[in-house]
């Protein structure tokens, strides 16, 4: 491995959260962007080919060194590491609405989910998975919410763009059909 790759490995090992290219650039100011990307790729391949227990992941607009899934069971069973608490189905529904509609107000989320989400928003906000990104212009200037990089970490996405595109979902959002298509009640 070239020295730059070893430097990045050290930083990625020490970091608790994914490091972005900008973070890595602070580490080695003399290295160009292309050199950094090349070093990251070299490290990724090193872990791939060398049969390591860890891998390099593109996560939350950055990079992170994580253990390979196939060892998760053994590690968790030996109680060496406690698995993080998984968010509930209702929490993920709320996050789905926010991820696609951000910036979005509480009222809009409630309109789509059909339930009160006040407590849910507070809890997600406290855990740093969503953040307040501004205020709407309308009546009462309600707070607008957006997802954070912690959300991408939680759901294992490299970036916001990796969310499935709505038109690729099985149920495409169709506008209400022509009146004639509705049968007699």
């Amino acid at each position: 491995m070239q020295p730059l790759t070893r430097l990045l490995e050290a930083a990625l090992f020490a970091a608790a959260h994914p490091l972005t290219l900008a973070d890595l650039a602070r580490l080695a100011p003399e290295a160009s962007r292309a050199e950094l990307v090349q070093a990251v790729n070299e490290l990724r391949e090193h872990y791939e080919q060398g049969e390591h227990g860890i891998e390099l992941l593109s996560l939350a607009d950055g990079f992170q060194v994580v253990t390979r899934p196939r060892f998760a069971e053994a590690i968790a069973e030996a109680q060496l590491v406690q698995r993080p608490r998984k968010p509930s189905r209702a929490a993920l529904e709320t996050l789905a609405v926010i991820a696609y509609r951000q910036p979005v107000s509480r009222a809009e989320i409630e309109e789509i989910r059909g339930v009160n989400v006040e407590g849910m928003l507070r809890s997600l906000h406290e855990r740093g998975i969503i953040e307040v990104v501004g205020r709407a212009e309308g009546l009462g200037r309600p707070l607008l919410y957006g997802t954070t990089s912690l959300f991408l970490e939680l759901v294992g996405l490299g970036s916001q763009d990796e969310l499935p595109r709505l038109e690729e979902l099985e149920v495409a959002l169709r506008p209400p059909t022509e009146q004639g298509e509705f049968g007699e009640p």
Partner: protein
Amino acid sequence: MTTVPIGASESPFVVRLDAFSGPLDLLLHLIREQEIDIADIPIATIADQFLEAINELGLNEAADYLEMAAQLLRIKIQLLLPRPFDEEGWEDPRAELVRRLLEYEQIREVASWLVEQVSQQGDRFPRGWLPELPERPPRPLHLTVEDLLLAVEQVIEAMPEPVLHRVVPRPLDVEGATTRIRALFASRDEVNLWEILGDGPTISDILSSLLALLELAKIGFLHLAQHQPFGSLVINRATADPTA
């Protein structure tokens, strides 16, 4: 918890309400179970089933479901009203509900995808992840009064001595300085500051002399002048030459 048999007369099935994340979820379930075309919902039947299902809800959960029930009943009533002859202006009252259901179904699908993602990501442990500390109450204390007194004593002993600022009286002798300056001017009309201060003055000597000079200048005995910044102070008898 809340298990309600629905439509027991026709097709008996049981709905567990705590399995649903909201009224839209329940509604979609009812529609799915009976293989109904979402665009052509038999509102009357669905509304009845919906009301049956939420019958035993707790008060807090009920609000969201009741709102939906009210909407279903409103749509049911609207459909019972005779339509205008001109079908052009008629809008199916179910259209808005269908739009919401489809939109919600999409979100539900994304949520399912996210559940899978979270589960996969949960198998990858990052570095520096700290497990949440278990919440344990502090262990009960077992000690005697002697132990407690001993502990108090140790705390008191460990306390640092309070640092008091000691003020040393160092009185200024303005009166003495005044006498000395007056004595110097008895024989001359001009004196410089160093002569007044004398050899090796202490801080209080300097302060006393300065205060004495200012006092004498104030009563008109002296005239103080400094011709340039940081230049030496010229001290004259004021009456001798006021222009100096």
